[in-house]
């Protein structure tokens, strides 16, 4: 972009795309904002009227909201913890030379290719089912009482299922990061008297910091909106024990036909997601700087 003319041309040519994307974002956002101030219920068509902040008051004072907020944070935090720690350990393991490395790497990536609904259903019916599930059979083999995972620990089970899906992603990113580590640095550390643990904490982990940051940021975006896994396993229950914000908004607008309330929830969710994003960038954003 050397000359004024080429800069102007660049702006002109990029503008259709920018305008399209802007419209694509602005229209649904403003409609959501507009609906959130209406009393808009699909059971009472044609009765829409402006209600001010009522929808927000109802949504925020709903006891399910606080529960859903905590569940969302627990789900995101839990999955992040399991996938980054587990991903780092798996990446360390797969970085070692061993026979059948290529096959193992493909196998490890496999869960990422399974659709969320499918994997959640497989876990629900084939593993966690208290009568027919594999875990129940194992428990019975040892003479134990089968554990009803989705009823006794619904959120924990969903965290486990979602972690299983996202572990390959974290492993893959961290493995490539690990492979880009200069071997001479590790050798230098070895000569400097650093043992395996010191080499991990002083050399490898700092090198992985940027990749871990990327994993956390990308996963947070997707984990805030986990929906399919909850829908097909627990339906948010028992009670609201496994309801996250996304699922609460779904219940509000599509099970209770309350478009206004659902829109208010959506706006709240956008604000909360931004708060989470600001916190994340404050905490780990500096890792992304060169």
């Amino acid at each position, binding site marked *: 972009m050397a000359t004024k003319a080429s800069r102007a041309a660049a702006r002109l040519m990029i503008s259709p795309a920018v305008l399209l994307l802007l419209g694509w974002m602005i229209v649904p956002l403003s409609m959501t904002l507009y609906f959130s101030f209406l009393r808009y219920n699909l059971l009472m068509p044609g009765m829409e009227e402006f209600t001010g902040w009522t929808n927000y008051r109802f949504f925020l004072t709903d006891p399910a909201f606080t529960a859903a907020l905590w569940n969302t944070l627990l789900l995101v935090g839990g999955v992040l913890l399991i996938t980054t720690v587990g991903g780092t350990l798996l990446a360390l393991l797969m970085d070692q030379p061993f026979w059948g490395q290529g096959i193992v790497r493909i196998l490890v990536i496999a869960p990422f290719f399974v659709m969320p609904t499918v994997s959640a259903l497989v876990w629900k019916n084939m593993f966690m089912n208290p009568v027919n599930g594999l875990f129940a059979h194992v428990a019975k083999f040892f003479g134990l009482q089968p554990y009803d995972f989705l009823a006794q620990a619904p959120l924990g089970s969903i965290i486990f299922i979602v972690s299983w899906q996202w572990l390959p992603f974290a492993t893959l990113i961290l493995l490539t990061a690990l492979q880009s580590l*200069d071997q*001479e*640095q590790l*050798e*230098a*550390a*070895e*000569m*400097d*008297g*650093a043992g395996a643990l*010191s080499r991990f904490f*002083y*050399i490898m982990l*700092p*090198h992985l*910091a940027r990749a871990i940051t990327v994993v956390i940021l990308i996963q947070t975006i997707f984990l805030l909106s986990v929906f399919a896994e909850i829908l097909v396993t627990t339906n948010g229950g028992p009670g609201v024990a496994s309801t996250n914000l996304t699922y609460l908004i779904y219940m509000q607008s599509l099970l209770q036909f309350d478009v206004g309330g659902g829109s208010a929830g959506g706006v709240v969710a956008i604000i909360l997601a931004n708060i989470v994003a600001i916190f994340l960038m404050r905490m780990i954003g500096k890792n992304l700087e*060169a």
Partner: protein
Amino acid sequence: MGRITLDKVTKSFGEVNVIPPLDLTINDGEFVVFVGPSGCGKSTLLRLIAGLEDVTSGQIRIDGEDATDMPPAKRGLAMVFQSYALYPHMSVRKNIAFPMKMAGMPQDEQNRRIEAAAKSLNLTDYLDRRPGQLSGGQRQRVAIGRAIVREPSAFLFDEPLSNLDAALRVNMRLEISELHNALKTTMIYVTHDQVEAMTMADKIVVLRAGNIEQVGSPLELYKTPRNEFVAGFIGSPKMNLIRGETAAQKGAATIGIRPEHLAASTEGGLWQGTVGVAEHLGSDTFLHVHDHGLGDEPLTVRVDGEMAVRHGDRIFLTPDESKLHRFDKQGLRI
């Protein structure tokens, strides 16, 4: 102390035998340079001494003690890598402190050694910077600083100057030589650059395909190369090697004469040829002489920088008989 002895050391990677049985003794305080063309096993040899590679057979002794199976950290050697291998996320101070921190040295002793090393290497102003903010020469000095503070029994350098520009390389060469004079510690230095080897070494080890071709002081190698390979490798520009009739007259399969031992004249001499390329360096001029009737390779001659010769000129050459090297059919010196 830093006396290192290699006793029938071999190294193979799978089927490939990189280093055939090799014996070498490096005395305490010596500056030893391993030199050879790329792929000759010189870096592997250094890594064997460092302990970064396991020897396939044979024994490595450091100060008389068997170090063959010792882990690298226990050998008391410090290494400076080609890529410097600085830790990018640590400041210069922390980089230098790392080996002492790993050894659990008290903090004030660490600080004392860091200050001393930084002072001797002109790094005092840069101690709080990250390696990424330093120039190539400064990074090199940090890597050396990290090696010095350990007070090792020997330093190992793996082509440390190959990433620097020409002017800086000359400077660092001097600095490393001065460091050796000041510390009097054993240093082992790997390079493919025979100039570095000649200028720095007390003892040069010329390697080819894992074999030691010759060991000796720079001048020994220059004056009495044991075979054709060493003769061609040491000295710049390369020695002229002449085969055939002319060599047979001198009772050898090959004769060698260095460019600086050929007298050039425009009037007359023993051999004659046409000047091809003339490289003017100011102090000297290197002439590549063709059509001399002694073989296909052009002869290289060093003449005074003042001598006015141009491309296409006729020139006469006379070798200095006392500086003539003669080699037999196997390439060994006669």
